[in-house]
């Protein structure tokens, strides 16, 4: 059966879901469940000592979903490593979605600091899934450093623009020796399907689900989009052609 395997662990779903920006925990859970996802990302933040909220983890079934802590907020390798270690101390398995985004405006990843952090975290035994610009050579460096995947962006986080980095992602996929997970910018199921049709191994979606009018229904829609793209990839898509080709036989009786 067609499974996604990341550092020896198998998943049936090729859709990872982020838990940020949902209007409520209920909406988040509805979206997660409908999406069929098995991996959900989470972030770290200070507890508000004066009125501690109940942890959102209370709403996430740890038997069903693998928690993938991210290092969002980290502006350099050191901060990212610190966050990864804290996640582990907080009881997560040593998996980390590595994000190093010095620019608070576009939140684009830093290739230099990301590689530096990846090298450290791999040595410390983490399963590292780095979020990167769609840079094939950087992707190779990270794989050589031992990351479990590469996660090139389709478009800047939260823009819903789709796979704007198509040319580069196609090269990353062609050259990859680990799963390629397209992350960021996927705003509609058609975007997710497009990434999968190109041969991506998985996609990660958050904003498109969180901002949907109906996050639950959108989770189901993305699930189908991802499966559609994957199945089409496996079923062998036809080439684009410059000239039209009749889908009805033209020979006939009309003119003889």
């Amino acid at each position, binding site marked *: 059966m067609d499974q996604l395997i990341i550092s020896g662990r198998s998943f049936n779903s090729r859709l990872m879901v982020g838990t940020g920006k949902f209007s409520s925990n209920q909406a988040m859970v509805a979206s997660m469940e409908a999406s069929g996802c098995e991996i959900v990302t989470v972030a770290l933040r200070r507890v508000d000592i004066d009125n501690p909220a109940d942890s959102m983890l209370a709403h996430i079934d740890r038997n069903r979903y693998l928690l993938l802590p991210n290092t969002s907020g980290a502006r350099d390798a050191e901060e990212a490593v610190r966050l990864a270690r804290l996640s582990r101390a*907080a009881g997560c398995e040593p998996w980390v979605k590595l994000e190093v985004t010095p620019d608070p405006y576009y939140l684009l990843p830093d290739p230099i600091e990301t590689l530096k952090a990846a090298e450290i975290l791999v040595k410390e035994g983490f399963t590292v899934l780095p979020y990167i610009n769609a840079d094939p050579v950087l992707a190779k460096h990270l794989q050589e450093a031992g990351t479990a995947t590469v996660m090139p962006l389709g478009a800047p986080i939260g823009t819903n623009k789709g796979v704007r980095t198509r040319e580069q992602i196609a090269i990353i996929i062609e050259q990859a020796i680990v799963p390629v997970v397209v992350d960021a910018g996927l705003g509609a199921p058609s975007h997710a399907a497009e990434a999968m049709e190109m041969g991506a191994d998985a996609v990660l979606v958050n904003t498109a689900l969180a901002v949907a009018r109906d996050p639950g229904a959108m989770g189901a829609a993305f699930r189908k989009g991802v499966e559609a793209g994957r199945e089409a990839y496996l079923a062998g898509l036809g080439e684009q052609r410059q000239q039209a080709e009749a889908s009805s036989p033209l020979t006939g009786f009309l003119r003889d």
Partner: protein
Amino acid sequence: MQLVINGQSREVSAESLAELLVELQLDTSHVAVELNQAIVESSQFATTALNENDRLEVIQFVGGG
């Protein structure tokens, strides 16, 4: 005694980290703690004594992409 917790200084009576979390009414599952920049494993909470002016970071998971 006086501690700095998540950037704010605060008077507490707890003498161990475990006691502090109880005093702050924090669910200890899924919180991570840095004491003076060093991570404290949850297994060590009970045996970790606090001292005047210790700096603590108490961290938890929130939604993120």
